[in-house]
């Protein structure tokens, strides 16, 4: 029932993007976010779309998955459009805003679809590791993120069970009217909170009985070597970001 939600889903195929080091993928994603902020013309945004499409083609993931992601944004896009219309914002600015939203979601979904959640955590830990110098608890942050990511499919699974239970009793999320959909979603909130807290409690107990400590030194299950392709992609992304920053400063 919630099969259309692509958040946190990993699509296992063999591609250059899948084989990239998680750290390089995170650096590319972060620089892409930066590029979106500095791309202040429609032409620039189109260039960013071209870059995103290039990455999608290299990832060997069917395009329909990305369309599904964009489809889930439709209400937010509509809301942005209407709000800009009311505030009398220039049409081009509205378009740039909307394309920025699409680009951000599109590119982050490349990261999640091509990287297993555990590897994203590894990448984040490495990405944030310079902050250790300032005594920022990077391990703890990475653990929280990894648990949050690991819980997305579980929570969706629980939500699916409740939606099925509702469907059996006359409210079908997929085929009902908007009013019924709202009833179904409203009824989801309370049990989801209760179940998530219960799960978190059980997980904490399970970690504690296995003597988990955040301060223990850990090794990674996978090797994640840094390849030529990683350096190449990071170089392209960082260069593009620098060009965009210089261009916006010059203007």
């Amino acid at each position: 029932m919630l099969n259309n939600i692509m958040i946190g889903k990993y699509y296992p195929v063999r591609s250059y993007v899948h084989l990239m080091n998680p750290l390089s993928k995170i650096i590319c994603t972060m620089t892409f976010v930066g590029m979106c902020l500095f791309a202040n013309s429609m032409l620039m945004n189109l260039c960013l779309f071209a870059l995103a499409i290039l990455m999608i083609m290299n990832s060997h993931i069917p395009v329909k998955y990305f369309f599904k992601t964009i489809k889930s944004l439709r209400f937010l896009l509509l809301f942005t459009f209407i709000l800009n219309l009311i505030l009398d914002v220039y049409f081009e600015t509205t378009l740039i805003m909307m394309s920025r939203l699409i680009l951000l979601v599109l590119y982050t979904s490349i990261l999640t679809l091509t990287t297993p959640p555990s590897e994203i955590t590894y990448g984040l830990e490495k990405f944030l590791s310079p902050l250790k110098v300032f005594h920022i608890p990077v391990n703890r942050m990475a653990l929280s993120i990894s648990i949050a990511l690991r819980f997305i499919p579980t929570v969706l699974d629980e939500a699916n069970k409740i939606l099925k239970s509702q469907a059996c009793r006359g409210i079908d999320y997929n085929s009902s009217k908007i009013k019924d959909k709202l009833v179904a979603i409203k009824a989801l909130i309370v049990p989801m909170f209760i179940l998530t807290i219960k799960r978190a409690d059980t997980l904490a107990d399970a970690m504690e009985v296995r003597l988990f400590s955040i301060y223990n030194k850990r090794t990674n299950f996978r090797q994640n070597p840094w390849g030529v392709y990683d350096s190449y992609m990071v170089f392209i992304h960082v260069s593009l970001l620098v060009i965009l920053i210089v261009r916006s400063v010059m203007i």
Partner: protein
Amino acid sequence: MEIKYNNVTYVYNDKTPLKKVALKNINLTFKEGKVNALIGTSGSGKTTLIELMNSLLVPTKGEVIVDKDVISAKSRIKNINALRRKVGIVFQFPEEQFFNLTVKKEIEFGLISFNYRISEKEKRISDALKMVGLDDSYLERDPFKLSNGEKRKVAIASILVFNPKIIVFDEPTIGLDYDSKKNLIKLIRLLKNRYNKTIIIISHDIDFVHSISDYVVLLDNGQVILTGDKYDTLGNPDVLKRFNLPVPKVIEFSYKVLKNKGIKMGYRDDLNDLLKDIYRYAK
């Protein structure tokens, strides 16, 4: 009311690398007005099979016929709620699927969504609770704070309340104590004998299945391996062992007595009946 599967195949995540064939060319008819049991190892496709029955899933190939409704990828059911009113499913761990803050709201949810007349509502809720062995004092209680057995009973009541013709129980005995299990058996017998319901049970508890079922379907790896009345299926320990399924204790005992002592015992559903026979024999 007929429940028929014609060449049904179901594939999860079809056309993706995560593709998993859950059911392969299933041809099956459940017996009307009887207790049908679906047995098989974990992952054999039992839950998928029942979810196809009220269109929670749509077959990838083939069709499922429930009464006059045809569920298939080609045709869309016009009135899905009418179908779901006929087939009530009590899911595995139904207590994890509560979404209301009082027992009353939980039970009346189906009545309201299926547009039952308001005058009937209170009585129906009360009757459903009585059938599962609870009284009206539970109505205003928080379902999340009940014991496991009580939660299970409320979940069953929330299905019984809209009086479906077919009732499906997915692993109903998990987490139930001996007394609750006995009460569940009584309830299922009542539903079958007095209210003429068609019951479908999925369970790994082979003794429970043996004591209650009339007709058994054995699934393995998404395929129907064996169908027949329980004497032919559960009474055959060799077949059950071949598919890594436990043998009902009563059957195992009779089988061992026959094998070791050459004494052929009559077929007994219940361990107590078998013990009575043994005492009679010993005297």
